[in-house]
């Protein structure tokens, strides 16, 4: 089972077990990871599951789609590593993935 680590704004880390095929957002919600709200339930329609992908994992997680880029416009404090976690599918290659949650999902 791939493990994913969520790092909160204050540095607190939570590592969860994810299943291949689910999204990083779903892995967070399943374990009630704070900092991921996912108001729309994964429809790429709200931008409240915004995360910063650790630099070393940027290539493995790929680039956001155009739809995701559009939705990131509704998030805040966007960085080059910004992604919506509902749009990152968990694969075996992502075992050990580290993402940081923003101070606020607004």
């Amino acid at each position, binding site marked *: 089972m791939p493990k994913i680590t969520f790092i909160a704004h204050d540095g607190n880390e939570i590592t969860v077990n994810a299943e291949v095929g689910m999204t990083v957002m779903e892995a967070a919600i399943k374990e009630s990871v704070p900092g991921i709200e996912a108001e729309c339930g994964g429809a*790429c329609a709200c931008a409240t599951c915004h995360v910063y992908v650790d630099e070393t994992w940027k290539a493995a997680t790929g680039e956001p789609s155009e739809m995701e880029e559009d939705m990131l*416009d509704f998030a805040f404090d966007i960085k080059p590593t910004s992604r919506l976690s509902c749009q990152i599918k968990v694969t075996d290659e992502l075992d050990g993935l580290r993402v940081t949650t923003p101070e606020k999902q607004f």
Partner: protein
Amino acid sequence: MTDIGIGNTSTIETDAVIIGAGPVGLFAVFELGLLDIKAHLIDILDKPGGQCAELYPEKPIYDIPALPVISGQGLTDNLMEQIKPFDPTFHLNQRVDQLNRLEDGRFSLVTDIGQEFITKVVIIAAGGGSFTPKRPPLPGIEAYEGSSVFYSVRQMEQFRGKNILIAGGGDSALDWMLNLEPIANSIAIVHRRDKFRAAPDSVNKMEALVDAGRAKFHLGQITGLNGTDGQLENATIKAGDETFDYACDTLLPFFGLTMKLGPVADWGLNLEENLIPVDTEKFATSEPGIFAIGDINTYPGKLKLILSGFHEVALMSQAAHHIIYPDQTIRFQYTTSSSSLQKKLGVR
């Protein structure tokens, strides 16, 4: 459909008020209508459909029984068609702020524009709560709200001669930039990328204004606000590696909408983690005569599905009937065969 907008403030007396015009609220019109209960719907959005229309109008839904796939807007349009025979009255762009019980057992509701309703039953179908504009998490932004920072434009004149900064890259941001440019002293838009998720015509017009020197475009993000006593003097913009202060007295952030429970929390109902507990026979709240259906309620086994909301509507309507017509018993009927139901539906 009748739409009563701002300006009509005489009290409306009715059998049922539905708070929230999402799919479940809309279907409540149908089930109540079959039982001869006339309903008024109130919604904070400018259109019916709730999240389906606001958050994912073009996205497919796959779990509506007998509709293998339908978009959020398609579902809304179909429901509007289905409830047409019952001619519901919509009160859009309004939020119910107050809900109180009257001495005669009925309820008084007052919206944020002062419209009052007197009703026998209240049906809360408010989903995830009220849609409210997203507030950018900028330190101290609250101090400027209402004086320098606005999340919507109600009266354009208010912005005449102002030095306006608009944040965002969607249709609202661009539309207001184009509309306010002629009356503003100066206007600029700040957006995190050079692509805009807006009507191509608006983007072209905005670019023409920028080329003509009548508007500015800053590729970047706001990181801070500076001013005194609620009066904005400049906004700090981070553009790439560069950070600068842009002089402006008005900021209009357009980052979409988010859902907040809102005034529902103040109506004296029992709540569990921002949801309203109900029974599963009548979907009644802790307050007799007030029902809660759809995503806003909770009970053992609750699933936040549109299809569950539809089921809740049917049972709730029977219970509402007992309150509105206490002397009548309901004869259970099918729309397929009942001539009286078919008459109500206008198909006979």
